[in-house]
Each structure stands twice: as C-alpha cells, then as structure tokens.
C-alpha cells in the first residue's frame, strides 16, 4: 500500500516502548505542564468562584446532594450498560460469524453523530402521539403508551448515543488480539463462554475501562438529554441557577469537577492493574461460530442500531419531509435559506477540522509523556486534560470569557476564532488522549533507534519516521474531537465571533422559533455530514483506537 514500514497493528506491538524508560526530557515535561495549565483554566475558575463566592457551605445541604446523587446514579447506570452493550457488539462484529458483519462494523459506531439534545428530542417526539413511531405502531392497532422521561428516559437515550465510546476501543482491541490464546484455551477444554470470560475479557479490560470513562464523563456533562427527559442532574441545577444564584451554580460545578477527577483517578488504577499480554505473531483473530445464535444475535444488532441510529433519523426526516411536502403543495413555505444552510455547513466543517488538527497536535506531547515515561507528572496532566471533558460547555465558555478579558494579556482576542477553538480543545481534547497514546506506543523502538543511528535529529525522526506510522491512530482521535466539536452548542453561542453560525446554532435557532420542519432538515444535514466523517476518519481506522 505504501512506502511506510509494513506494520499491521499487531506486528507493531512487537517491540514497543516500555513505559518507565527513563525520566522525561525537560522539553517534554515543560510542554506537558504548559498544556495542563491551559486545560486547568475552566476548573481553576470554578474552584476560585466556589471558594470566594461561599459555595462550599452549600455543599453540605441535602438540597445540594440530591442532584449529585442523581448524577452519580445516571452516570453509573449509563457507564455499565454502555460497557456491556459496547463490548457485546464489538465481540459480535469482530470475533464471530455474525451475518453482515462488515455492515454492522460501519453502522455500529454511527450513533455518535447525534447531539444528545437532538437525539433525545427526536426520540421523545417519535414516541408520543403525532410522532412517527407512535403513529406507525398505531396503524397496526397498538396504542403505544410509552412515555420516556426521568431516569429511565435519560438512561436509555444516553446509552444508545454513547455506547460507541466503548464499542470503538474494544472492537479495535479485539481485532488485534491473536487467536493463539483462545485456541489454547479451547484445546484445554474451555467452553466458548469460559474462553470469553477467562481470556478475551481480561485482555480488553483496559479498553472497556477507557471507553466507560469517556461515557461517564460524557454523561455527567450532558445537558441536552437530561433536560429533555426532565432529570435534574448537576448540569441541570447549574443551568437553572446560572444567572440568579451563581453561588449555587458554581458549587454544583465544583461537585462535578470533584466527581470527574475522582473517576479519572479510579480508571487509572483499573487500567494499571490489568496487565495486557504483549501481542506477538500476526494471525487473523479467531472467529467463533455462533451456530443457532446467529439469528438472535443479528436481531439484537438490528434492534440496537435501529433504535440508536435509524429511529431518530426517521423522526428528523418526518419533520423535515412534512415541511417540504407542505411547501410543494404551496401550503407553507419553508423558512430556510439555502445560502445560510451552505455557509453554516461550511463553518461547521472548517472550524471542527481546525480544532481536531490542533487538538491532536496538543495531545502529542502528553501522549509521549504517558506512553514512554512513567512519571507522576504524566498522571496529573492526564487527569487535568480528561476532566475538561466533564465540564459543561457553558462553564468552559464563561470561564474563558473571564480569563481572556480579566486575567490575561489577550483581551484583544475576545470574540475571535482562537478563543472558540481553544474552548473546543479544552472541552474535547480528552477524546484524543488515548488514541494519541496508542499511536505513540505503536512506533517500534528499533525504527527510532535505526533513524537515530543514521544521524537523524529529534524533529526529523518525528516527521519522517514516527508521524507516518502514527498518522492513522492520530486521525481516528482527531475524528472523535471533530465530531464532538460539530455537535457543540453552548460554548459556540457564547464564545464564537458574532455572525459565525454553525449548524448547531442554526438548529437551536429554528428550535427556539418552533420551526420543526426546518430544524429536521438542518439536523439531518448535520447528522449526514457527521456520519460520513465518522466513517471516513474513525470507522476505517477503528483498529488504531486501542
């Protein structure tokens, strides 16, 4: 395929860098600390406001602990269910003879394209009378009484839209796991389920943990789904009190931050304990014959992908199509300017591309520090960066407005693109950390050594040897950042330059004005573009995610 060294993902693990080799050079530590300081800005603002505003005394009241407890309930439930769902789907699509496996591999990660707000709205109204699912079922004489709300509704919607965070790394890990271990276990008399539990599961623990961590943080920072499902979590309390009771809002943000840091630390402990077997050899993974289970397995996949991917799309199409048909019949013109749509699409694509590229570049030093050096600093930096993912977009935006105007020499940057890109990176950079780390690990040490012997300096080795090998992994990470950026709303509204309108801004605007048909069309455009990009950037490179 190319001139780069022949390296399949598994072969690349032959002689990878061992963590703990030497102290990190000062340039690396220095840049990692610098990046961590930037990432700590929102959290720092929250801590400062919570302390100086007297929020801490609020935290002991029962009233403050209720939203915290609900947040923990929801986040744990969603993390556990996505861990099970994501792992099961990954195993089915990668390690079995499931029918239409290639199709499932493309479709399974795609629910990631829905902003939770739009997904939940589509879901919610599809099921209620007047909604497409409800009315379709009604055609067959059933009266659907299902009304999604509260913990159940939020849990279901978030599980369906967040499981790809587990599915992607686990599928990648399973695809690179050699068959020899499982074959040996089978030869020694283990039944397929025992093989899964004793061999496969321990080897994927760290991927599951990393994916579940992202799901947990995604859930605690989510606003859209819990808002529509009327479930009062911390982000809801922050949102409701953001103006008139900032003491409470920052107190809740402080709790959110503490929770996130705690969970990040816990995940590191789990990940460190699960020693992964170094993969040698280069054989294709074992395919388990499902036998009679093929049909139920395929049915479950259809159900999940149907619910998570097609049901919301159907609702959106329903709204959009209804409006379009009315226009065709001359009833009501669509209040949609195609020029605006095109420019919003363009703005969305370019700002998220720029964000993704810079985010990956920023994550590289951290990835090097984590992958090649065992140091306390690496752990701290990692926690700070990942905690950024747990901060609600609103909090990130307000804190950056504050820092830009009142505590930095960059006042002139207010309302400019750099601040917006910075906000996105602080918020979503965490999603590229792990892929960047995996990418760094995948560079065989002997190649770097060879280049060094030939007299190539650090920069030259990075450009000519390491980056080409890491490119696919880094691209997959960039894809994840890009997707989240495309879906972001609150920070975009507050920080973006005036007149800069992305698709989510247009969608919000039409939603506020009750233009459902227009909203359906805009949302479909966003979802379609995201789907193509997910496939192009993430799914095709899925093996580089773990």
């Amino acid at each position, binding site marked *: 395929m190319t001139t780069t060294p022949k390296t399949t993902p598994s072969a690349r693990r032959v002689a990878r860098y061992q963590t703990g080799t030497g102290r990190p050079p000062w340039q690396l530590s220095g840049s990692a600390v610098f990046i961590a300081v930037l990432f700590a800005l929102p959290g720092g603002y929250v801590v400062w406001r919570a302390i100086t505003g007297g929020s801490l005394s609020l935290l002991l009241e029962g*009233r403050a602990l209720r939203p915290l407890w609900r947040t923990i309930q929801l986040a744990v439930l969603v993390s556990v269910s996505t861990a099970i769902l994501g792992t099961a789907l990954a195993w089915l699509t990668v390690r079995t003879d499931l029918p239409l496996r290639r199709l499932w591999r493309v479709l399974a990660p795609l629910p990631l394209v829905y902003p939770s707000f739009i997904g939940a709205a589509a879901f919610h109204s599809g099921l*209620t009378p007047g909604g497409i699912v409800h009315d379709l079922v009604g055609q067959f004489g059933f009266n659907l009484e299902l009304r999604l709300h509260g913990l159940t509704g939020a849990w279901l919607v978030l599980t369906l839209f967040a499981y790809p965070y587990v599915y992607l790394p686990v599928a990648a890990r399973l695809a690179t796991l050699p068959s020899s271990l499982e074959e040996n276990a089978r030869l020694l008399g283990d039944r397929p389920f025992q093989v899964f539990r004793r061999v496969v599961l321990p080897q994927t623990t760290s991927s599951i943990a990393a994916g579940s961590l992202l799901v947990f943080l995604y859930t605690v920072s989510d606003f859209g789904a819990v808002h529509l499902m009327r479930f009062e979590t911390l982000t809801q309390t922050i949102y409701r009190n953001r*103006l008139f009771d900032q003491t409470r809002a920052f107190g809740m943000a402080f709790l959110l931050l503490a929770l996130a840091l705690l969970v990040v630390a816990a995940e590191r402990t789990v990940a460190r304990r699960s020693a992964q077997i170094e993969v040698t050899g280069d054989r294709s993974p074992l395919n388990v014959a499902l036998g009679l289970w093929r049909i139920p397995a395929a049915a479950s996949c259809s159900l999940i992908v149907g619910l998570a991917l097609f049901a919301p799309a159907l609702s959106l199409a329903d709204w959009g199509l209804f409006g379009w048909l009315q226009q065709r019949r001359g009833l009501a013109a669509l209040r949609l300017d195609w020029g605006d749509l095109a420019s919003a699409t363009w703005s969305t694509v370019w700002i998220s591309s720029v964000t993704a*590229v810079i985010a990956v570049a920023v994550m590289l030093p951290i990835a090097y520090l984590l992958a090649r050096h065992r140091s306390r600093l690496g752990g701290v930096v990692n926690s700070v960066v990942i905690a950024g993912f747990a901060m609600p977009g609103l909090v990130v935006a307000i804190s950056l407005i504050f820092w830009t105007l*009142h505590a930095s020499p960059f006042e002139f940057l207010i309302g400019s693109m750099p601040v917006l890109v910075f906000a996105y990176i602080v918020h979503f950079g965490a999603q590229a950390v792990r892929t960047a780390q995996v990418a760094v690990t995948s560079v065989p040490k002997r190649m770097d050594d060879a280049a060094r012997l030939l007299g190539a300096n650090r920069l030259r080795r990075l450009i000519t040897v390491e980056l*080409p090998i890491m490119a696919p992994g880094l691209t997959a990470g960039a894809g994840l950042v890009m997707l989240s950026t495309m879906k972001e709303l609150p920070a975009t509204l507050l920080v973006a330059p*005036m007149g800069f309108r992305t698709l989510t801004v247009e969608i919000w605007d039409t939603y506020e004005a*009750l233009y459902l048909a227009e909203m359906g069309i805009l949302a479909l455009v966003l979802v379609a573009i995201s789907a193509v990009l997910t496939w192009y950037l993430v799914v095709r*490179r899925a093996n580089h995610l773990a």
Partner: protein
Amino acid sequence: MYLPKRRSNRLSALLITLALVGSSTACGSNNEQSLTIYSGRSEKLVGPIFESFSTATGITLNVKYGSSNDMALALATEKDKTPADIFLSRSPGPTGYLDDLGLLAELNDDVLKEVDSGTKPANGHWVGFAGRARVLVYNIDEVVKEDLPNSVFELAKPKYKDLVAIPGSNSSFQDWFTVFRLRNGDNTATDWLNSMVANGARFYPKNRAIVEAVSRGEVHFGLVNHYYNHQESEKNGDAQRSENHTFTSGDDGGLMIMATASILKSSDDKDLANRFLSFLLSDIQQRYLTDTVFEYPLAIGVAPADRLPQQPIDTVGAVDIDNMAAEFTRTMEIIEASGILDQ
C-alpha cells in the same frame, strides 16, 4: 488501513487552507458606524427588525444570539469590557439583574416617552418592547367552556386534579411566579404551588411541550405564554385541538411578561444605541411584532393583532423589584421545595 504519507500530507495542507480561508472571511471591515447587540430573542423573530434597521440607516449591526440568561451571564462576566452596546432580553429578570450590578445606562427621553409607565422602571434603564401574556391553554374536545376557571387559584380545586401542566423550570413561568409571589406574599404563593403539586399538577420543561400535550389530550390544561398556541395553530390548522383562555381581568394568572431592551453603560455610542431602540418602538416594527410574531406591541398607540386576546393585561413591570437576583433565587427555592421538578 492507514493513509499513505503523501495523501495524509495533502489532507493536512487542505485543513490548513480551510483554516486560513475561514478566518479571513470571519473578519469584516470596521470603518463605518456599527452597534453590537446581545440578543436573548432568536434570530428568526428579531432578525428581520435588525435587517430593516441596517437597510434604513446604513448602520452595521453585530449580533450575538443566545438565551437571555446566557447573554446576561456573559455581560456580567465581561463587565465594562464588553463589546455590547445593547441587550435585548426575553424578560425583565436578566435585565434587572444587570441593572442591579450597575451595568446599564439611562435611556434617552425620546425612547422612554414611547411607552407607558408600567412598561419601564422608575430609573429609566430599560423599556419593554413586546409582551407575552400568561394564559391557560386547554383542550377543546375534553373541556367545556363552563369548566374554565376565572382565577388561577381555582386550578388547585379537586375538579382539576391531575389535569393541569406547569412548566416549572421555564424562565417565563419563573418570571410570572416571582411577580405572583410579590403581589400575594410568599405564604399565599407557596401554598398555591404546593396545593397545585398536591392536586397532581404535571411538570413539563417547556411551554411548547405543554401546548402539544394539551392538544393531544395528555393533560387538559396548561399555564403557558399565549403565542405558542397561535404558532401551533398556524402550523397544524384544525389538527390543533387547543385554545387559549385568559383569566378574568386583573387575576394574577394573566400577567404580561415583557421582552426588554437596554443599553450598556460601557457603550461608546449611546445616541446611536438609543436610535436603534426608537426604531424598535416605531409603529412599523411594533406592527411586525404583533402581526407576524403574535406578541403584544408595547409602544403607545399601537393596537395588538386581532387574533390576540384583547383585554388589558397587567405587565410585570407594574411590580417594582429591588433585587432581581435575590427574588429569583427565592422563587427558585420555593419551586424546588414544592417538588414539582422531581416528577
């Protein structure tokens, strides 16, 4: 599975070009007169007003859209360094909050004289420019006219058990409840809300969701802003099975909530900003707001559109609120304690 080197270079080159093109289109020239507006009303509603102002005067408007509370939060964070000249808010709450922080300027007399005394505060720091009435939306198939209440207090009676929806977390409802509380006292207001909850009042987060739920009979009544039903009827025609009911004139259930306009103290061209406010209160723009957006015009001498309930409705400004933040915090506490949000 990975990109050949040459292709990936081209990809990043493309991305960098995108970045450059994007940022160059983002910066506009800035030599003519311009105003910056933070708008808590959405572009679909007020955008046409901005456009006609720019066309008529040649003045460029830079507008940041968002929810009123977010815009006020941004302004409170930016303080005197804000680029904003004008703040348009859905309701007086966020505006009053900024006024309490001392961030708003007094408006010119020719702007203030456009509206009645009930539509502006004594210090002249803001004006109402459009009104939304709180009404009771009801299902026309399930409810006979005789069963419609005269007062919002009747909704706590057993007759309405499990049939009424309240948008407890919605900012319009909170505006209304704050005034309701200040007019009737904390005890009466708290008792009313608690008895509503005891009477099985249902919680929905948004006015719109309530109008939809009432139309399909999920609940029979809902406390909402008047214009959602007009918009839904416009869209759905006869399929919309709900209508607005206004409480008896003077009843606490039927207050008017004003959208407000104010000018920031830090604005460096307040006369220009006042000029925009005059434009907003001009007959043509007020007619647009009532005929197209179905809101109540607030400039003196402009009549509401025919389809709106015609009886006079008290405005929120009729109650003087000294400390917005404290009052809204109290409102929030009572609403939270009532348990309506926990459904």
